[in-house]
């Protein structure tokens, strides 16, 4: 029983980590609002 | 009448003319307008940039910008 809970917790932790990192570095949508003509590009 | 880059320490001047196309609007908004008084506070090594007081406003600009401002000494 104890064993199963522990394994379950590890699985949950790993899933959360992977999801978090994925979201962090591959944001679902690129920012829609690009800068105007006078910034970034100048 | 001289351009502002030639001003020396302890000299006071009054702005006579500015080249609107060359000067950034920001500088104009900070008080760099004809009629206002200007003096040199300090020069960095190699005389550039210049630390000026224009109409009571302390600011630093480069000599190449100052060339676009004409002043008369007073």
């Amino acid at each position, binding site marked *: 029983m104890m064993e199963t809970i522990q394994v379950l917790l590890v699985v949950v932790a790993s899933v959360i980590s992977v999801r978090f990192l994925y979201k962090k570095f591959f944001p679902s949508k690129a920012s829609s*609002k690009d800068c105007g003509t006078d910034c970034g590009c100048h | 009448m001289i351009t502002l880059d030639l001003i020396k320490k302890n000299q006071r001047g009054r702005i006579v003319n500015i080249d*609107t196309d060359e000067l950034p609007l*920001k500088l104009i908004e900070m008080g760099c307008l004809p009629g206002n008084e200007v003096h040199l506070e300090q020069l*960095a090594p190699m005389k550039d940039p210049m630390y000026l007081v224009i109409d009571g406003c302390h600011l*630093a600009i480069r000599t190449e910008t100052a060339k676009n401002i004409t002043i008369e000494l007073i």
Partner: protein
Amino acid sequence: MSKTINVALIGNPNTGKTSVFNAITGLNQKVGNYPGITVEKKQGICRLDRTTKAHIIDLPGTYSLNASSMDESVVIELLLNKNDKDYPDVAVVVSDIENLKRNLLLFTQIKDLEIPTLLVINMSDRMKSKGISIDIPLLEEKLKTRICLISTRENKGIDHLKSILLDYRLLSNAKCTNIKQIDEAYFEKLEKVFPDQSLYKLWLVITQDVNFAKLDRKKVEDATEYKTQSISNLKRLQQKETIKRYQYINQSLKETYKVDQSKATDYRSRLDRILIHRFWGYIIFFMILLTIFQVIFDWSSVPMDFIDESFSNLSEITKQTLPTGLFTNLLAEGIISGLGGIVIFIPQIAFLFLFISVLEETGYMSRVVFLMDRGLRKYGLSGKSVIPLISGTACAIPAVMATRNIENWKERLITILVTPFTTCSARLPVYLILISLVIPEGSFLGMGYQGLTLMGLYLLGFIMALLSAALLNKLLKIQSKTYFVVEMPNYKLPLIKNVAITVFEKTKSFVVEAGRIILAISILLWLMASFGPGEDFNNAEEIVTNQPASQNYTPQELETEIASYKLEHSFIGILGKSIEPAIAPLGFDWKIGIALISSFAAREVFVGTLATIYSVGNEQEETLKNRMKSERRPNGELLFNLPTGVSLMLFYAFALQCMSTLAIVKKETNSWKWPMVQLFSMTLIAYLSALLVYQILV
């Protein structure tokens, strides 16, 4: 019934706007970003009376509504968009007593938007020493507003401000100037087409080069038809507008604002004479930097040792008290040691932010800009690049954002590209642990070797930044006009409250941001280190025990041997082994290789990774430093000796191992081209210099 009013704080830079914000909101504030852009958005709540709260938003500092940067366009976008949820019920223009005239330019612009506006005159504690006197009631009448004299330093006038905010409905929203006067014919034509629009707003829409995504775009496009004026003509009109505004301001101030020069004491020019002296100015700047590095190293060693000890104890306690099992192992070996790898750097990061914010608060930073401009221009940078380069010692991300006030695009691009060379606080953990391992403790002229090495690494970062800037300056063919206008604010003693809030906020966001990444990576690393494919991993115990050499092992030694055999054949071990050939010439083994891979996400992960790798399957909980110290190569040599240490430090000094930096550079330059250029060239430089140094030293 409780209600909330929206208040916007607007003002020039250096007017103490943020102090006013801190004074009225206290710690009741929240720093975030404007959606889609990386401009910092600060908001807070302030209770005005039992039923009314003020939602206060601290807008980026700006000299006028004619925006020249992304930060400034945030201000105008909000003020032009009545449908924004933050659109202010009342605007508070913060000005400082000494530069009232210049500050009022922005005030008249806000007033012309017909928003109820009140004027805060900050730093009233300076009136006496500057010989300034103001006739407040008369000035209120002239400017058609209420005025609140405040001293955030002496905590005076805040209650008065709150009481005016409470009665904001009584504030006048009359305009100060009539934009029509600058060109009657043009504006009358405009008025005919848009009869129910405010002329000044239309004028702003026409003259601004900013993005009005939230405004009705069609209207703007329709208006372009009437943009018959050439750019140079529009600018002439803007100049005329500015003159008109100053006429109005001078008129208002003539009888109300008096300066008695004989009573004014001027410590500004006396300080300036020393601090920007053509010789002493540079010496002082260098001394200040030297002190900062020494202090960061010295003062933080005690709390750091304490934190290191605590985390290894915590890990041990966890193992002993919790029921044995997979998750307990994850907690003790993955999570706790990974977290320790970030918490340990809180003291140093806090000190660094402390110094940077003090330098900015005092007004000294502008002097550094002044001192360095000429010298930096040779390298294609601007004096203003100093601020990104210095704040890059905290973190490259805010530093890249700080390039926004560099007016010239080429100078700005070069600054963005070279900023990641400066030693950011994420490199600090790596340097510190390596320095303490390979650099002896002695001292030279009162400076410890270790402190000097750290200083040397910082210098190396700056030198590399300059050299690559010079190279880029030659290579990049971009023509753009150079503008350089820097306000030289008066010196002031930093407000402890401001500094404390900045240090707290920045450290917190660093720890939270980096901490979450490190935590997630630590968990994954632990997983990959605890499992492996095939026979070698699963039957490790048997294989090691059956080796002829293991017959002489004590049970303890046998266990360590099994653990390291397992690690070598785990997923992560295989990964590290596969890149070992590429990094062996630099003196790195496969464990360091793993750390290199994982620290691509963020450099500080390096230490956490090693901590996780070394603690997996390790029974005795030791501090990381001791574990690294005893690590040996297969031939019995110490792994972390001088050549390896120096080579690693150089690699970290030059390589761009930070996904967040790449992301921000992409955002700021609007293309993937520049971050990719950065990534490849920096990695190449890192690899080659580490290779060179290791081959020479070994």
